[in-house]
């Protein structure tokens, strides 16, 4: 239970997901942008859930015995790329989820949350079960918050935000208040 929340808190606040996701920064109206956000959320959630235990296994079975822990980041990136390929094959028909021309590959490799959960999992999770839990928690937390923020931006399109706060400032304030709300969960994890 504890690792689940620390990853959720860490990966969500650390990863700059909101600003890199296309079209999320400024309030949008059309459902296409929301579908795009759904695509990113689902792809990253699945990525987190699968890669966390996978990275833990690779670390315990290969990296440590061979003493090549320094290769961890590169190998983990390759893992992310391979997973992106599988996702692309599986979700080929769901183009409305991911209108980006570059497809899943570029998106997942550049997603900070994935690398974060893999590197943290390597160090923090002691058992495979904990790594699976951390991945699941991060995945669900990430997808929920991204969708919440995307639909919040869709709703804020009609808000008369003063000119000086249009676009990025309002988005940052919204993320700030959401982060403030998440601060309430600190202390749930007694390390």
């Amino acid at each position: 239970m504890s690792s689940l929340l620390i990853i959720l808190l860490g990966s969500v606040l650390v990863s700059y997901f909101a600003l890199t996701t296309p079209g999320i920064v400024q309030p949008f109206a059309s459902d296409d942008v929301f579908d795009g956000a759904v695509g990113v959320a689902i792809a990253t959630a699945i990525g987190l859930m699968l890669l966390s235990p996978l990275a833990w296994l690779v670390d315990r079975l290969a990296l440590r015995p061979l003493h090549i822990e320094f290769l961890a980041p590169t190998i983990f990136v390759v893992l992310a790329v391979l997973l992106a390929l599988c996702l692309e094959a599986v979700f080929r028909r769901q183009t409305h989820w991911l209108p980006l021309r570059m497809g899943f590959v570029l998106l997942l490799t550049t997603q900070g949350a994935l690398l974060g959960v893999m590197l943290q999992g390597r160090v923090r999770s002691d058992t495979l079960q904990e790594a699976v839990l951390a991945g699941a928690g991060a995945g669900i937390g990430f997808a929920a918050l991204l969708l919440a923020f995307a639909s919040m931006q869709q709703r804020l399109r009609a808000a008369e935000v003063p000119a000086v706060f249009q676009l990025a400032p309002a988005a940052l304030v919204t993320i700030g208040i959401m982060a403030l709300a998440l601060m309430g969960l600190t202390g749930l994890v007694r390390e």
Partner: protein
Amino acid sequence: MTFATSPAPHVIAPNSVRRVMGLVLFALAPAIVMHVVFFGVGLLVQLFLGVIVALVSEAIALKLRRKALQPFLTDGSAIITGVLLAMCLPPLAPWWLVVSGSAFAVLLAKHLYGGLGANPFNPAMVGYAVLLVSFPAQLTQWLPPQLADLQLLRPGVGDACYTIFMGHLPAHLTWDAITSPTPLTSMRNSLSMGLTMQEAQANPMFGSLGGRGWDWINLCILGGGVWLLVLRIIRWHIPFAMLAAIAIPAAVMNAVDPGAYPGMTFHLTAGASMLGAFFIATDPISAATSNRGKLMYGAGIGLITYVIRTWGGYPDGVAFAVLMMNAAVPLIDRYTVPRVYGHTR
């Protein structure tokens, strides 16, 4: 003969935003009176400061946005933000706490998004959460309830004002002499020290329901809330869902381990449960829209509140729970659109 024209309909019920907000403030009155009875005049000073700062910052924001001052200042929404924020703070908290919280709430949480009706987050809770996170120390200096059988040193009116405005106690008082933890905090501390529920409750500050003094305040809030329900100013969905979502896990955990987890009545009458259910979560602007959405929204707040109270770092999680569910409201609204006449789904 010629006549003025206007679009249909030509008759509306005599209702206004001012009346709605005024009734909400009126419903809060008994609780404020009870609060003053138990905890002294500190709250009145905080209320005065909170409301004044809320109105001033509202006026500044309206001036900057070049909007008419009179209708928006007198609609009472800023006053409610100030009042709710003041009620969450300890009575003797320093003046700059409620001032900064109220200004932050009105300027950033409300007018940044476009003023009345556009703020996705509850302004009072944004202000309170900012204070909770930035000044945790000052927010724990609560006073004990003024009960007949408890001979505790009682700061008079002069002392209260002195403390609030000077930021420190007058010479003849010390903080540990006059402060005492709230029922929630004391329950948490004693449980974490390994005491069982029964030993924790032996402390004289606990009465039959929850914390003595506090339970009366919460009952008054409940009365005010029911009165608003009867007047149809608020709907039953959010308070019912929230209180149920606090009571049920509390009852379950209490049944599972009566020694370690306080019961349903304690949780319902402690901290800001009632204030949150009837006055904070039901803020229509930042709450969910459809009835089903309101039930999910209320249940979410209740659950998160219970989780934070039981396993979290903060004594009372209502503020954070409300903000978290405010963030989820657009997503909830998106998937809980009620069925329209003539449509199957």
